[in-house]
C-alpha cells in the first residue's frame, strides 16, 4: 500500500508539473496584453516599457520560465501583479473558504442522495422513482449561479430565512482570527459562539445550492449501481440460501458502492469548478472568486498559482478516492 501511494504521488507530481508548464506557456502565447491592462491603454511608451520591465515581461519567455520555476522549487509562487502580495499567502486564505463550502455541500449531497438512490432502486417505477427521475433530468448540469440567485430571492427576499448574500459574516459580527481560514472551524476553536452561528447562517444557502446541483448524478449512479447488484447472481444466491434480508441488504450496499465513490471523486473536482460561480453569487472570498479576479485582471502569477493549487487538490482527492476504492473492493489493490 505504501509503495502504491508513493508511486501515485510521483505520477501526480509529474502531472502537476506538466500542467504548470503548459499553463505557463499557453497564457503567454495567447494574445492578451497584461501590461496595457495595468497601465491603461493611453499610457506613454516609457510608462509601458517601465511596467513591462517591472513585471519581467521584457525578458524572453524562456528566462521568464526559468525565473518562475526556480521560485517554484523554493515554494515561491511569485507576487501578484495587481495587489503586490505573495500569491501563496493570498491562496492560503482563499482555499479554505472554498474547501469548507464544497466539503459541506458534498457531505449534504451524499447524505441525502445515497439513501434516495437505494430506495428508488428497490422500487423501480414507483412514485419516488418517477419524482427523482424528473429531478435527475434537471440537476447535474444546471446553471448553479442562477439557482443561487433564485434561492436568494426565495429564502432571503421573500421568506427572510437567509441573510443577504454579502459574504461569510454579517458586518456587525467581528470575525474570528484567521487560523485555518474556515469560518466555522475558526469561530469554534476560538470559542466565539456568535461568530459560529453567523458563519453557519451565511453558509447554509450556498451549501444547499451546490448540494442541489450535484445530488442528481449521485442519486442516478446509486440507483443504477444498486439495481445492477440487486440483479446479480451472488445476491440471488444469498437470497436462495435464505440469508436474512438485513444481511442481503448489507452485501448489496457494499457491492454497489465502488461506482458511487468513483463518481463522488469526479463530482468533487466538478465542485471545485462549480464553486467559482456560487462564490461569486454569495460574495465569498474563496479560490473561485480569486481565480475570476486573476483571470479578468490578466494577473499571470495568480492564474498560474490558482491552476497549480487546484491541480494538486484534485490529484489529492483522486488519490484518497483510489485508496478508498481499494478498501471497499479488495480486487482493486493490485
Amino acid at each position: 500500500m505504501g509503495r502504491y501511494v508513493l508511486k501515485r504521488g510521483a505520477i501526480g507530481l509529474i502531472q502537476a508539473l506538466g500542467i504548470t508548464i503548459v499553463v505557463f506557456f499557453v497564457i503567454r502565447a495567447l494574445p492578451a496584453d497584461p501590461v496595457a491592462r495595468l497601465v491603461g491603454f493611453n499610457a506613454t511608451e516609457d510608462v509601458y516599457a517601465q511596467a513591462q520591465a517591472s513585471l519581467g515581461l521584457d525578458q524572453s519567455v524562456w528566462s521568464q520560465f526559468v525565473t518562475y520555476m526556480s521560485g517554484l522549487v523554493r515554494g515561491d509562487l511569485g507576487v501578484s501583479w495587481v495587489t503586490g502580495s505573495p500569491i501563496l499567502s493570498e491562496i492560503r486564505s482563499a482555499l479554505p473558504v472554498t474547501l469548507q463550502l464544497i466539503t459541506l455541500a458534498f457531505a449534504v449531497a451524499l447524505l441525502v442522495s445515497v439513501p434516495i438512490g437505494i430506495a428508488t432502486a428497490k422500487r423501480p417505477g414507483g412514485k419516488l422513482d418517477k419524482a427523482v427521475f424528473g429531478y435527475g433530468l434537471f440537476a447535474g448540469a444546471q446553471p448553479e449561479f442562477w439557482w443561487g440567485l433564485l434561492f436568494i430571492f426565495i429564502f432571503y427576499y421573500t421568506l427572510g430565512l437567509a441573510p443577504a448574500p454579502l459574504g461569510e459574516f454579517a458586518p456587525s459580527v467581528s470575525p474570528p482570527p484567521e487560523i485555518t481560514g474556515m469560518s466555522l472551524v475558526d469561530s469554534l476553536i476560538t470559542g466565539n459562539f456568535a461568530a459560529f452561528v453567523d458563519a453557519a447562517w451565511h453558509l447554509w444557502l450556498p451549501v444547499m445550492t451546490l448540494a442541489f446541483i450535484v445530488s442528481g448524478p449521485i442519486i442516478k449512479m446509486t440507483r443504477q449501481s444498486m439495481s445492477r447488484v440487486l440483479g446479480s447472481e451472488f445476491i440471488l444466491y444469498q437470497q436462495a440460501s435464505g440469508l436474512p434480508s438485513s444481511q442481503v441488504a448489507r452485501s448489496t450496499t457494499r457491492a454497489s458502492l465502488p461506482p458511487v465513490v468513483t463518481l463522488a471523486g469526479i463530482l468533487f473536482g466538478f465542485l471545485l469548478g462549480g464553486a467559482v460561480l456560487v462564490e461569486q453569487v454569495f460574495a465569498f472570498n474563496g479560490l473561485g472568486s480569486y481565480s475570476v479576479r486573476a483571470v479578468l485582471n490578466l494577473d499571470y502569477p495568480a492564474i498560474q498559482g490558482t491552476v497549480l493549487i487546484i491541480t494538486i487538490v484534485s490529484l489529492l482527492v483522486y488519490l484518497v478516492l483510489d485508496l478508498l476504492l481499494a478498501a471497499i473492493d479488495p480486487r482493486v489493490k493490485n
Partner: protein
Amino acid sequence: MTIPTSPPVPGEHPLEDLSDEKLKAKRWYHDVLLVTGLVIVTVALFLAAFGEAIAPYDPTIPVGPPSSPPSGTHWFGTDTAGLDVFSRVISAPRIDVTLAVSAALLSGILGTFIGLMAGFYRGPLSALIMRISDVLQAFPVFILAMVLVALSGRNLTNLIFALTFLYTPIFIRLTRAEVMTQRERSYVEAARASGNSEWTIAVKHVLPNSLTPSLIQLSVTVGFGILLTAGLSFVGAGVRPPNPEWGLMIANSAPQIVLGEWWTSLFPGIAVSLTVVGFAALSNAIERRVATS
C-alpha cells in the same frame, strides 16, 4: 436442495427483470425523455434561427420604462436599462445555441477522428494523446475555459474554439474505447484478408461501427456548451454586452434580485435550465433506444 417457501419480493428478485411492470416503467421513462428532448431542442433551434425576427422589440435598445414588472406590453418585464426581457430571452439562442452547437459538432468530429486514430493505430503517439486528454479532463473545465477565453479575446470565434478544445477529449475517449473493441471483431479481419489497406479498414469499416457513443454524446455536449457559455458570461469572461445572451442577462440582474426584481433573472435562467435539460434528455433517450435495440 431446499425450495424457498416465501414468495420473492417484487422488484428485488433478479429473475423478474423483464416483468411487465419493469418494462412499462422503462418505456415510460424513454417516452418522457424523448418527447421532452425533441420539443425543447426543436424550439431552441427554431429560436436560434428566427428568434430575433419574431421578437416583439429590438433586443439591444431600450423600449420601455426601466425595471418594470411583467405586463401586457412587456410579457417578461423590462430590465434596469429598459430593454424588453422577452425579446432578449428569445433572441439569445442565436448566440447561445449556435455557439454550443458549433462547438459540439467541431469537437465531435475532431474527437471522433483522433479517437479513431488513437484506438486503431496504437503506439507511443496514441499513448501521449490519451495522457494529455486525461490531464485535461481532470482539471476543472470552468477555470480552464475562463483562462482560454479571457486571454484570447472575448469574441464568438474564440468562445467556439475554447469550448471545442475543452470538449474534444470526451469524444476522443469514447471513440477510442469503442474502436478498441471493434478492431478485434472478425469483420476487420475479413476486410484485412480481402486486401483492404489499414486506412480503408479504419475509415470505411471501423469508423461507422464506432460512431454510436459520439452520437449519443453530441446532444448532451450542446447542453454543456450552453451552460458554460452562460457561466462565462456571468463572471464577465464570455459574451460582451449588450448582446442578448442568457448568462449576461442573469449577471446584469444579479444585483437587482436582493431588491426583489425577480423577472430579469428568472426568465433567462429558466431558458438556460430548460435548454440544457432538453439536450440532455434527447441524448439520454437515444442512449436508451440504442441499449434496448
